């Protein structure tokens, strides 16, 4: 029997098939948002000893039910919050628990404001009727204040932004030896400006 030559497959409809698949994936795609503000909630059991915080070491931020912002009992615009928080945290007008002054602070050393970043507490209180978006905006500004100070110190010590360093540190793709090199740096900056953000339970009215 004579061998018949194999006919060539017509590839003209390949584009159609590919289009079909393309349109299916186009329609079903949802690009997930997978970033946000990381926060740690306080544990439920209160610490055994009540810590007494001096008034000068406390920055009280209250959001009322009309989404207005009160910083130390004064009505403040959201855009001024970051500056106020930075000024408060970076004040460094005194000594920490070990009796050391804050030698890296660049604040005004105001005797009415915080003594040391390690002692400075920001207290955030909101109402049950506060809108979530306002709360997130305030949280964002407070985190931004910490990040601004941490970036400044990180740039001074390691010529690198803290946020960048932290992202690299928590990235699973970073090789282990680089992570071990980053760990003391991240911890040192975090110790310089620890994030002490206390969230009181909301007021009922």
């Amino acid at each position, binding site marked *: 029997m004579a061998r018949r030559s194999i006919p060539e497959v017509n*590839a003209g409809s*390949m*584009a159609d098939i*590919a*289009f079909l*698949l*393309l349109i299916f*994936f*186009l329609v*079903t*795609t*949802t*690009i*997930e*948002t*997978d*970033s*946000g*503000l*990381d*926060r*740690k*909630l*306080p*544990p*439920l059991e209160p610490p055994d000893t009540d810590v007494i915080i001096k008034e000068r070491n406390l920055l009280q931020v209250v*959001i009322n039910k009309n*989404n207005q912002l009160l910083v130390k009992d004064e009505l403040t615009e*959201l*855009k001024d919050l970051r500056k106020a928080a930075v000024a408060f945290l970076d004040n460094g007008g005194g000594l920490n628990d070990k009796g050391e002054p804050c030698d890296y602070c660049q604040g005004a050393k105001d005797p009415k404001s915080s003594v040391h970043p390690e002692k400075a507490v920001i207290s955030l209180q*909101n*109402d*049950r*009727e*506060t*809108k*979530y*978006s*306002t*709360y*997130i*905006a305030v*949280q*964002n*500004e407070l*985190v*931004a204040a910490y*990040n601004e100070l941490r970036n400044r110190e990180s740039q001074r010590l390691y010529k690198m932004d803290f*946020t960048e360093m*932290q*992202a690299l540190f*928590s*990235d*699973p793709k970073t090789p282990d030896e680089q992570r071990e090199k980053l760990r003391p740096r991240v911890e040192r900056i975090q110790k310089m400006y620890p994030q002490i953000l206390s969230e009181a*339970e*909301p007021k009922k009215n």
Partner: protein
Amino acid sequence: MAKFTKKKNGELPAVSTASLPDIVFMLLFFFMTVTTMKDDTLMVDNTLPIADQTQKLDKKDRVVYIYAGKPHERYRSKYGSQARIQLNDKFADVDEVAPYILAEKAKMRQELQPLMTTALKVDKETNMGLISDIKQELRKVNALKVNYTTKEGDAMRNIE
């Protein structure tokens, strides 16, 4: 100079479509790789607030999602327009959050359990009361790592 005189030919040559499949395939592969299949069908409105100091969420196997917001228009007649919590595929009350977290935690691999993060995907119009209730529940079961999932952008746009 006859060499340079063009052959007069009125017809335009047809555009070759031979590379069309290649282009389409390229697009196809792009969408295939960026697609993530949705785990949950959203039953609540979910416009996330905006923030710019964000950190990337951990890997998916150690994250538990909690959605909250006003019920979607389809469910309004049945569930009303008060903001609700959604766990997995159904609406839930505040006191169901703690058992849900514990159940999800038990499903995780042992070594990942301490790393568990709770991602709160909450609509920006929600009142803080509901979120405080959720947070209170999370504290009860010691799930202290939370992530307020947000969109990337200027935070000032939240208060418009």
